[in-house]
């Protein structure tokens, strides 16, 4: 494992400064209070587009900068610290990777430049139940004369209400639970039969249930091979998981910093509470877990970059490791944050609750820790 490069450290500083000034948690709170329809601030998203971050994993030929996943992770972590809401992960990471890994040249040139400059939002529509289960897909894609007809519903689609297009995981064969028979389709939001219902979740971000009611698409809407999408879907999802884990690392890191700051300043029983050994040890254990989590997240992102466009079992293990570790630690840290802040921690006026709510939403997305432990064990054959 290598350390961050100088370039990545510079970008980290840039992202930290930008998020602190242009998209701080106060701005997220204000957006939540306004109940913004999209679940993100349009001007903030445009600002992110100007910085070029949505194009970090987009090839240069399609308007991106192709700087890799560890670099993307550095940015996601810093935005995670401020709970900055935007489609950066859903479109810039997941949508871009779906097209990059499975899309044809024509599909890539149609969508990647828009993803890169933040003028188009492409998101993955995968889950159909409360839990992440990509192979559980039931949504049907029936073959028609000219192409396919899609029928079914996708739930909790990230930025589903604002997306211009969906990469839809559909079933062209087999039955729910099978890896065989899965196919990916690129479906535009404006297409006949596509409708979405905006969801309001505890973390106040943009989600929607998206209904595909006999949506007719041409054969050119298919991404990759018919019925054989499982391996590439795993690869897309693994990149999504490692990227989301980087954001979670930021959410957890900020929760830790705020808690540490409080321990250094809050006086009780005539002393700064951080001097109480019982609390100092809890802080030390949180910090140890934070360091361990960071290693897992950076190792997964680095391994993705080293693998190029290929995938391996070792890489899958690292991605599941990073998501499970980030999930466990963020869960723990966000709870510790509330408890160590005492009464103020449970007031809406203080930010701790915003971090707790975001923590649970990210834990549930793209597989929670249980999902990834099961996958890890299965991959290792026991």
């Amino acid at each position: 494992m290598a350390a961050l490069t100088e370039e990545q450290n510079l970008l980290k500083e840039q992202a930290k400064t930008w998020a602190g000034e242009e998209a701080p948690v106060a701005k997220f709170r204000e957006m939540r209070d306004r109940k913004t329809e999209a679940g993100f601030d349009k001007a903030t998203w445009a600002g992110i587009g100007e910085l070029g971050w949505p194009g970090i994993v987009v090839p240069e030929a399609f308007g991106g900068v192709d700087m890799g996943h560890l670099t993307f992770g550095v940015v996601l972590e810093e935005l995670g610290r401020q709970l900055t809401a935007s489609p950066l992960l859903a479109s810039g990471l997941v949508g871009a990777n779906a097209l990059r890994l499975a899309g044809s040249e024509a599909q890539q040139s149609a969508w990647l430049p828009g993803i890169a400059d933040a003028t188009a939002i492409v998101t993955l529509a995968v889950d159909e139940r409360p839990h992440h289960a990509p192979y559980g897909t039931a949504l049907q894609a029936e073959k028609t004369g000219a192409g396919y007809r899609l029928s079914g519903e996708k739930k909790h689609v990230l930025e589903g209400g604002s997306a211009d297009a969906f990469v839809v995981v559909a079933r062209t064969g087999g039955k729910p639970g099978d890896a065989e028979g899965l196919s990916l389709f690129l479906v535009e939001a404006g297409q006949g039969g596509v409708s979405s219902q905006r969801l309001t979740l505890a973390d106040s971000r943009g989600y929607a249930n998206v209904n595909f009611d006999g949506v007719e698409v041409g054969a050119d809407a298919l991404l990759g091979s018919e019925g054989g999408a499982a391996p590439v879907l795993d690869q897309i999802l693994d990149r999504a998981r490692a990227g989301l884990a980087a954001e979670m690392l930021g959410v957890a890191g900020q929760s830790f910093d705020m808690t540490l700051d409080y321990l250094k300043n809050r006086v009780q029983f005539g002393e700064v509470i951080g001097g109480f050994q019982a609390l100092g040890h809890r802080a030390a254990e949180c910090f140890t877990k934070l360091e361990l989590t960071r290693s897992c997240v950076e190792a997964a992102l680095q391994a993705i970059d080293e693998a190029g466009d290929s995938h391996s079992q070792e890489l899958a293990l690292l991605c599941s490791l990073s998501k499970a570790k980030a999930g466990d630690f963020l869960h723990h840290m966000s709870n510790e944050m509330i408890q160590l802040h005492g009464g103020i921690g449970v007031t809406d006026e203080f930010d701790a609750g915003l971090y707790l709510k975001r923590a649970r939403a990210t834990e549930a997305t793209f597989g929670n820790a249980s999902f990834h432990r099961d996958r890890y064990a299965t991959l290792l054959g026991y």
Partner: protein
Amino acid sequence: MPDSTDALETFRGEARAWLEENFPKSIAHRGSELIGMEHVAEDADLDLWCQRLGAKGWATPTWPSEYGGGGLSQLEAEVLRKEMSALGAFNPLTVKAGMGITMVGPTILEYGTEEQKQRHIPPICRGEVFWALGYSEPNAGSDLASLQCKAEDKGDHWLVNGQKTWTSGANIAQWIGCLVRTDPDAPKRDGISFLILDMNQPGIETRPIELIAGASPFCETFFNDATTPKGELLGPLNGGWTVGKRLLQHERASQTGARGAGGAAAKKSIHALAKEYVGTDAEGRVADPELRTRITAHLMNAKAQNLTLSRMIAEARGNAKVSATASIMKNAASDVSQERAELAIEILGHSGLGWEGDPFEDHELEAVRHWLSGKAISIYGGSYEIQNNIIAKNILGLPESTQRG
């Protein structure tokens, strides 16, 4: 750049060629069998390897070559480590030297006089001497600074009286580094000095300590009018607390790799052990799903610990600085090692509780001893709680704790 990629690749080639020529193939991949925590097996090829490795200076690869070290950069040492690992080679001298390579040597290199370096470092590099450390005392374990063993200035030498405990390998050591009280009137941290003593003298006696796992490398060590020349004071008079703390950072750094279950049990992965002793379901999964989950959580912890170790090496970028982060790694390594031993005992069931006798297999007997001896990991070298104090104070900048533990 001394460590440019090209230069490192050249070094990799040289290291590989030297290892292929000098490392006896008969002992390849037999490291854990031939050297345990504090013992080295009798084996002619192992002896030969110790000699060659010591003569080359590669048992202490980053130490200065003028004292018998390898003179390599951290990055070159990392390349060497990888090349050794690829061939199944290992470094037995870190065990043969006792605390010499891992703790005392780096401290002498940092604080020693030229004479001390020339006297003590070369034999350590060659693995010729075994070093013990006299830190803990019966009434000063975690509260190290309250130690009482005293050294009096007798003009040309020091006169030492008192007792130490938990002195690993004191019964076989040639040298011991001790923290002793040289000023009984000073505040407790200000009256301590670091003294080096020759173990082969009538004034020093050792008595082994039996532990819950059975025999142990630990001893009680008694000093009755023991002596050492004035020139064996390491670092400043009454400045031993700083020297001693520095040595402890090296100790923690040396304990940051999870040892895992040693011996035969370590040859099998914990999940293979579970499949064998607990059984599998129709899909080939470990039959007890709750155990399967805990095994996975453990494997993830072990992987995280391992990745963190390599990240910290990478971030040090060739800088050998040992820092407070060693405390994080020591606690993480204790967790992983103890977790694995507990899981192994649980998985083996009654077969994992055999104490001695033929009905038990060797690896089963080893598992129970390993589980018990592993309980010491989170106590020695500064307990889990002491490490957390260090993290809280030195890394996180929290105030000195008001309730001591």
